[in-house]
């Protein structure tokens, strides 16, 4: 039986005992362990917050960035905790929590950066440079906005594919947040590729947990617990082992990143 509309979203989650979250499988933001268990900084924070809210567990669906917001609206998940960076347009589509994971952009390039690609503009200006971007991710927008034409901004389904395509010479540069690129390069363990970080002119972006607009009350409850955890240092204990800076997240706010109240 479908829960009554008027019913509070949090009460509903408590009743079902878990919260359905969308993740991207992009370590260290989100990850799936060999045993199938979901981890990564985003889900770990969400799990801790929800536990304090009385929701015992999170159940994750892996999804492409572009499919997360439609999936949330289609009630496929209750929240997105995937490193989906806050952007004014996104803030109009979903209700974000306060910032959680902050990072800036990096490039993975061939050893020695033969094309001397340091910024998105460099890619746009070089007529032969092809850049791999996550479909629907911030990096795709940054590239297009910097003048990279559509047919040189190649949508790559996942990080592993991006590195593989770089190794195979299908693309000349692959861009993701710094921590993601460094994680990928560590796994690839390939001396022929290296990282350029941060990308010149790229903004520092932060994600938050994203909820449906109708579930603003759930978002508010989430924010309250998150603030307490930031205060107590518990937050830092979760994110810093993954390489994220807790201070960066605490220095900025949703209002700043969304360019207005959300």
């Amino acid at each position, binding site marked *: 039986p479908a829960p009554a509309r008027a019913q509070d979203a949090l009460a509903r989650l408590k009743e079902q005992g878990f919260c359905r979250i969308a993740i991207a499988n992009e370590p260290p933001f989100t990850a799936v362990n060999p045993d199938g268990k979901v981890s990564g900084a985003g889900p770990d924070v969400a799990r801790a917050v929800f536990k304090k809210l009385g929701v015992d567990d999170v159940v994750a669906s892996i*999804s492409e960035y572009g499919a997360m917001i*439609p999936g949330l609206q*289609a009630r496929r998940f209750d929240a997105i905790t995937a490193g989906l960076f806050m952007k004014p347009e996104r803030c109009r589509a979903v209700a974000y929590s306060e910032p959680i994971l902050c990072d800036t952009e990096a490039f993975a390039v061939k050893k020695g950066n033969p094309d001397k690609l340091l910024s998105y503009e460099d890619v746009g200006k070089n007529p032969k440079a092809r850049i791999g971007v996550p479909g629907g991710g911030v990096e795709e927008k940054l590239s297009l906005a910097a003048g990279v034409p559509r047919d040189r901004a190649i949508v790559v389904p996942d990080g*592993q594919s991006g590195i593989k395509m770089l190794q195979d010479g299908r693309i000349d540069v692959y861009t993701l947040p710094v921590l993601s690129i460094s994680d990928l390069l560590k796994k690839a363990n390939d001396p022929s590729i290296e990282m350029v970080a941060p990308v010149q002119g790229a903004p520092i972006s932060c994600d938050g947990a994203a909820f449906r607009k109708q579930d603003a009350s759930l978002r508010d409850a989430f924010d309250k617990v998150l603030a307490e955890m930031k205060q107590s240092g518990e937050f830092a204990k979760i994110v810093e082992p993954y390489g994220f800076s807790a201070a960066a997240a605490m220095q900025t706010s949703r209002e700043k990143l969304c360019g207005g109240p959300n």
Partner: protein
Amino acid sequence: MIDWTGYLPLILQGAWVTAQLTVYGCALAFAVAFAAGLGRLSRHGIVRALASVYIEFFRGTSIFVQLFWVYFVLPLFGLTLTPLEAGVLALGLNVGAYAAEVVRGAILTVPKEQYEACTALNLTRRQSLRHIVLPQAFVVMLPTFGNNAIELLKGTAVVSLISLADLTFQAQVVRAQTGSTAFPFLSILLIYFLFALLISLATRGLERRLARGLDGARA
């Protein structure tokens, strides 16, 4: 490089999900195929029309459109299915439409003379269908049903796109975690092929059993 054997259980979990999708999907497809296939041969215009619309729609649009529709659009009408349910529904209805044509075609291969013999023996329509037509048509359907089931099995890979943790999906996960590309893809290709082999062996075995009486030379 990380040792990928640790991820074998993940692949096997995916194989289990793929097996479930295939079995449930086939069950749904089978049921729908008989309903629609017989419906298309019905004496009642309305039943015929309904069956035709179903068949043409699901054969006409691709499995992607149907899957995305079931997964993203149905919830807007208040029906939220789990990814497994959505996958079974889309695959079952899609393959069912193709199999319905197999049912219809097989029934039409039963010669007119068999119906006439039924009339001459004063059997009712229902009795003729049940005792004479369907048993003969089923033997004709079986090999194609086997192919339909394999098509359905292959269709399950597309379900990975709606984030159901099937074989293909788990291969991607393993790839993301380990950086190995060849191992996960080769191993799932083999697993899919084993499943396909299993399906065709099963249909062939069943076929042989059913055809035994029909073929004098072998009996």
